[in-house]
């Protein structure tokens, strides 16, 4: 060595050091630089909540909130499915018809062939898996743009669904377990137990992360920040469960001063824990496994990923398989809520799913976005439909407003990035 430096080189930070005040400063600097994530969508969601609460007295009632959740669940699941391919800069236009075809397959298997409902669901999921594999093969191995492959499937599968269902046919979902997903609620105690499990998981992973960072000898954020964040999650969760634990059945009035008896509707809808579990598992995979990291890398720069030794084609395959399989879950949700499966089920929804992901802050160019973004985007779109419906506005207005919100969200994102990064605005 030639010489020793007079002062030791400055330590390179990681953004985890510093007081709570410095953490907040850094966070707001990030926002100014265009790292907004789901913030615009959350802001929009809150504004819409406040707006509709003022405009309609029946909006912020437990009954309507439960309703809203079941309305949003299908779209949320489909948007989350699409995130896996959108992160690669790809698209799956056939996700909606995939959900329709598999729901049709499910209902026909149960209805006409007396297949056990669990087996029928597994067959439907396997069908989704096979469809994803098919798309992935043509995109990743043959090299056809995903837009074209899935557009072909979008057209073709509407025909397949028609063949499975039969012309003009409509099947009722007569499996009580499947109908329950959207139409029945958890017992109140289970709602609270579920919340406790979710909070415990959040606390454990947060503590685990801190322990790992401490063992590696790198800085941790102030503990208070972590507990504050967890407390917010716990409070929001508790308010949510408490609201849904009240009897929300509409009153039947009273006769001679005595209320007329009615069946209580109370508890968290069954679809909520299923959706939250899938959201949690998907986020875990995207954030904490090599597959997730590689998915983001391929979405950001496929050539860099290839040179880093990542099997780009396999990552693409798995993303399409995941998307189609989760689309089947969306199909089952939809069948459960509507109660029937027809030849047209699922054919309309896919673009709304894409819109939900984009409104939530997922970039169509790939590499940027999270599952929670898609979930929040789906909530925004569902709130618009729900709120405008309560105000008695025609469906046409709903479409117009949803489209406007989509363009608004996209421009918000583009402008904030342009201001921050110049040429990198995308």
């Amino acid at each position, binding site marked *: 060595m030639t010489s020793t430096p007079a002062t030791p080189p400055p330590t390179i930070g990681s953004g985890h050091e510093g007081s709570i005040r410095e953490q907040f400063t850094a966070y707001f600097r990030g926002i100014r630089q265009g790292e907004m994530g789901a913030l615009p969508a959350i802001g929009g969601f809150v504004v819409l909540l406040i707006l509709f609460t003022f405009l309609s007295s029946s909006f912020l009632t437990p009954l309507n909130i439960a309703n809203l959740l079941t309305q949003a669940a299908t779209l949320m699941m489909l948007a989350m499915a699409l995130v896996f391919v959108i992160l690669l800069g790809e698209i799956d236009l056939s996700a909606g018809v995939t959900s329709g075809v598999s729901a049709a397959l499910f209902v026909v298997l149960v209805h006409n062939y007396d297949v056990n409902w669990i087996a029928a669901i597994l067959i439907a999921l396997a069908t989704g898996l096979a469809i994803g594999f098919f798309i992935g093969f043509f995109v990743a191995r043959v090299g056809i743009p995903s837009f074209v492959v899935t557009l072909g499937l979008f057209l073709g599968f509407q025909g397949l669904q028609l063949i499975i269902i039969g012309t003009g046919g409509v099947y009722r979902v007569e499996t009580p377990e499947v109908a329950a997903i959207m139409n029945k609620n958890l017992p109140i105690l289970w709602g609270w137990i579920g919340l406790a499990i979710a909070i415990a998981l959040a606390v454990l992973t947060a503590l685990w992360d801190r322990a790992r960072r401490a063992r590696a000898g790198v800085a941790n954020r102030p503990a208070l920040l972590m507990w504050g964040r967890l407390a917010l999650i716990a409070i929001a969760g508790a308010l949510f469960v408490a609201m849904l634990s009240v009897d929300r059945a509409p009153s039947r009035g009273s006769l001679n001063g005595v209320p007329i008896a009615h069946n209580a509707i109370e508890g968290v809808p069954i679809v909520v824990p299923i959706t939250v579990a899938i959201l949690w598992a998907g986020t875990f995979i995207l954030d904490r496994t090599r597959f997730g990291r590689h998915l983001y890398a391929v979405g950001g720069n496929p050539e860099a990923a290839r040179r880093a*030794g990542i099997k780009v084609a396999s990552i693409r395959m798995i993303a399409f398989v995941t998307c189609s399989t989760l689309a089947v879950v969306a199909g089952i949700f939809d069948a459960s809520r509507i109660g029937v499966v027809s030849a047209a089920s699922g054919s309309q929804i896919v673009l709304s799913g894409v819109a939900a992901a984009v409104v939530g802050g997922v970039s169509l160019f790939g590499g940027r976005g999270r599952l929670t973004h898609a979930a929040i985007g789906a909530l925004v779109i569902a709130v618009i439909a729900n709120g405008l419906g309560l105000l008695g506005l025609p469906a046409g207005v709903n479409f117009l407003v949803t489209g406007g919100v989509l363009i608004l969200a996209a421009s918000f994102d583009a402008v904030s990035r342009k201001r921050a990064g110049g040429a990198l605005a995308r």
Partner: protein
Amino acid sequence: MDVPVIELTGIVKSFGPVDVLKGVDLKAFAGKVTALVGDNGAGKSTLVKGLAGVQPYDGGTVKYDGQEVHLHTPREASALGIEVVYQDLALAENLDIVQNMFLGREETRFGTMDEGTMERQASETLQGLSVRTVKSVRQKVSSLSGGQRQTVAIARSVLKNAKVVILDEPTAALGVAQTEQVLNLVRRLADSGVAVIIISHNLVDVFKVADYIAVLYLGTMVASVATADTNSDDVVGYITGSKTYEGKNV
């Protein structure tokens, strides 16, 4: 003189009827910077791609630390500690510095990422190269300047104890100050014991940083000299073919 880390002898490569490399010799020594210069089409990239295992040579021998080796895939090259930093950098802009440095070779524990360990190793590597321009290893690459990106790409190449680092035009797209930073980094890289091969068109840079200069002219190594024993005019002459090197090759 020491045993060169890399010694190429009589390397031949052709694409169909075109002979791109016609029996090229090249040596790279630990702790030294060897500049590979030559006009467009002289065969610089082809020579480097063979070393990286991307395009295997047709003939000739490659010795690594005195042992003959065969480089057929990028994996074989990187297993030997040969790393290439390409001109277009190959970083994922949507990921941060740590994520890019460990891309494709993430540290995991119980099947999940060990972010703490990766973060510590990344900042140790950057500090080992006396990098001062990077504030946080968790910055997104999209927020970095060209020079900082080059720094990250070079740091990525030495993360796993590289023995040979090949830099393809590392200063081509950089401004004056950033070029200076990157050249300093290249020097420190060599001082830490790595054999550095740098491809460059900029002779000012080459004379600033290189210990040896190897000149390719139409697929032949026409000169291989210590920087101290030559000057810019001569090197330009060798590159354009208007001068012939008479001395002994290093």
